[in-house]
């Protein structure tokens, strides 16, 4: 007996000093039937095949359409072509709201969100680049001079009206303006092509196969990224920051699509609907729903007999949605009302969903936030 104990101790000691690294690695388990009530891998497959990839493909198509309309505009910069170019931009920007939240894997490694939609855009920097003709859009310091917000300026912000704007594309410096617009578009095209092809040619399988439960597993990372997007980009970026709730005074210049001035609320709503659809596992452009965070919560709840969290979250998102639908475009809300009471009230409803996701959902799913020792207190 003592020998056994001695051996056991030595083995423990050796293990103690060597085995910790496995925590970071994935424990690969064979794909066998398990008795758990919910299959995380089914949810990952639904996310990848029915939501993420179709959304990317659709966005990529809308981006192509935007580039085509630019090519027409390039040949003849008239009012009709400007209007068409603009509406293609609105289309693509709206479609972007459905992929902006997926900052994971390929998108994360190219910094997709940061390269496509940093606002407020730096219009002075853009003016300077156009005059100089020398710039490197791949530099991270130039993120505020490209992407959708830069196009917003180039399409809507160069002059007071269409005639003035068109003046730039038909004036002495027209080549420079067209060149810069084209470079911004090509940069977006390249980034999007990388992300879409990475997803379809390999990352999809990696993503789906990583169905464990550590801080590096797909579900845990996706949930973290999802909540991060909701809190930081949707709630704060599109509403809170321009409203001034973090600064004490309103910042209308920080509204998304500031120069356009009319679509910011629509963009927000598209983003909110996308977030809710993802929560419910709704297939892209369809009413079919698959395994999702909502069905996962329901499965866990059937064991726990707790409150119906998925319904509560959906109710809250619906309330937020209807409050925002009653608002005008955000720039007008902020500039015309002092203080912007209605928008602040709508913001509060958006805000209320954050603790539900961040506290109740994460806690119910036991999602790992970070790899640090913690003994649960």
């Amino acid at each position, binding site marked *: 007996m003592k020998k056994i*104990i001695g051996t056991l101790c030595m083995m423990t000691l050796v293990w103690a000093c060597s085995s910790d690294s496995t*925590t970071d690695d994935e424990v690969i388990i064979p794909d066998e039937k398990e008795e758990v009530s919910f299959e*995380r891998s089914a949810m990952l497959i639904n996310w990848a095949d029915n939501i993420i990839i179709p959304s990317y493909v659709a966005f990529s198509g809308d981006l192509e359409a935007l580039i085509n309309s630019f090519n027409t505009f390039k040949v003849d910069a008239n009012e009709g072509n400007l209007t068409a170019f603009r509406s293609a931009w609105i289309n693509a920007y709206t479609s972007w709201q459905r992929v902006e939240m997926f900052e994971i894997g390929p998108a994360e490694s190219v910094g997709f969100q940061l390269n496509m939609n940093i606002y407020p855009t730096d219009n002075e920097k853009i003016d300077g680049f156009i005059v100089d003709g020398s710039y490197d859009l791949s530099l991270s310091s130039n993120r505020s001079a490209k992407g959708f917000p830069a196009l917003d300026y180039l399409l809507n912000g160069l002059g007071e009206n269409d005639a003035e704007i068109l003046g730039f594309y038909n004036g002495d410096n027209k080549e420079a303006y067209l060149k810069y617009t084209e470079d911004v578009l090509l940069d977006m095209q390249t980034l999007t092509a990388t992300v879409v092809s990475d997803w379809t040619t390999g990352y999809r399988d990696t993503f789906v196969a990583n169905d464990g439960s550590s801080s590096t597993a797909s579900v845990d990372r996706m949930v973290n990224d999802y909540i991060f997007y909701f809190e930081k980009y949707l709630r704060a970026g599109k509403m809170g920051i321009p409203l001034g709730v973090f600064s*004490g005074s309103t910042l209308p210049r920080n509204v998304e699509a500031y120069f356009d001035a009319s679509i910011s609320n629509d963009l927000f709503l598209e983003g909110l609907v996308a977030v809710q659809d993802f929560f419910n596992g709704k297939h892209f452009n369809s009413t079919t729903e698959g395994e999702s965070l909502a069905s996962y919560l329901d499965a866990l709840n059937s064991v*726990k007999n707790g409150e119906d969290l998925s319904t509560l979250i959906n109710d809250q998102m619906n309330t937020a949605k209807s409050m925002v639908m009653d608002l005008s475009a955000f720039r007008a809300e902020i500039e015309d009302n002092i203080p912007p009471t209605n928008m602040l009230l709508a913001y509060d409803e958006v805000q209320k969903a954050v603790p539900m996701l961040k506290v109740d959902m994460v806690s119910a799913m*036991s999602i790992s936030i970070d790899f640090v020792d913690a003994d*649960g*207190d």
Partner: protein
Amino acid sequence: MESVINKYIKAPVETAPLAVFRILFGLMMFFSIVRFWSYGWIDKLYIQPKFFFSYFGFEWVKPLGVYTYLLFIICGLAALLVALGYRYKLSIVIFFLSFTYIELMDKTTYLNHYYFISLLSFLMIFLPANATYSIDAYLNPKKSFEYVPSWTVNSIMLLLSIVYFYAGLAKLNSDWLLKAMPLKIWLPSKFDTPFIGGLLGEEWVQYAFSWSGALYDLTIPFFLLFKKTRPYAFVMVVVFHVLTRVLFPIGMFPYVMIISALIFFDASFHEKILKYLSKFLKVDDTKFNNQKVYQHFSTITSKMKMTVLIAFFAIQFIFPFRYLLYPGELFWTEEGYRFSWRVMLMEKSGYAQFKIVDGESGRWFYVDNTDFITPFQEKQMAFQPDFILEYAHFLKNHFEKDGHKNVQVFVDCQVSLNGRLSTTYIDPTIDLGKQRESFLHKNWITPFKDEIKGI
């Protein structure tokens, strides 16, 4: 009574168990430090953050910038010297001080096992653990003793037993026993554990784990004490801690407990280990078999030592019960929660959004917590009232320095406990800037809406 004192305190016993304990403890601590460093946690936890949460009364203990690395080097070297038994007294004092300093730097990283290490190393200052199989004893025969008074070994057993038994007591509550909470939340998410993963979603498994966990903690010290049950009890210790290691991110704690439990074994077992070790290291260990019995040279030192140790253990017995002095649910208010062996006892998380109001202009805004604290700090802060208060004071100072006048700090804080839906945790109408930290009850904590029965 006399005979009890003689047997458990005065009677000479072999020094071997103490020596084995010293060696293994020192090595474990050394590797803990190396592990901590290798994960980059020194940088991540003590150098990157701009703000650190202090224990009440220990606000002066802060990380030392890049010199924090030096602190860890000192702590690691001291651990190694403890293992070698070289200048033991000095080494263990330095280890105790440096380790405790590290733990006091930021209470975000509070772990019961770190507290355990601090207590254990404090206790070891008073033990002649270098009396045999140490460099001290090897170099100086005057310091070499084959026998020591039995209280030295027994005090380690007592401390371990307190840890287990109190951890068991803490589990005797309705959430743990009747609802299998929080294991009902934690276990299903570990479905990818080899072999047992598939079972963890089963309700009966969750109850079985809860009940056997409580039973294990309450009884294991006794089973380890009796010679007949000891080997089986030790197998249980290994199984239990390996299981917790596999399921939960509790770092070195399981190993520390497994190794510590060896102290319960007979001296002959430890002597074998030491013999094997001497053979392996090719050290002549006949020197250590000198038949000498360790004795205190002055009765005054010995009396002082005893007084300190009695006070130490009295505090250990009483301190975990201090929560009884506070109104409200312990798990909710956490007043008297720490330093009481409440390990892996609840699933609690929160969300705290702070609102800064300029009392003069009436202007207000919310705080972006990521501007000031790390995600890990934010997570820990959001459900612990003392963290929330300290952070609120920090925010008040920060924004008053920024030029705001008469800053008021309010918080919208939602907390979920053991699967209950999150509810308001802190009175949102209270200006936290005006509240002072103390050991008194914080009456601005919203009372718990449910009831948890038990200890």
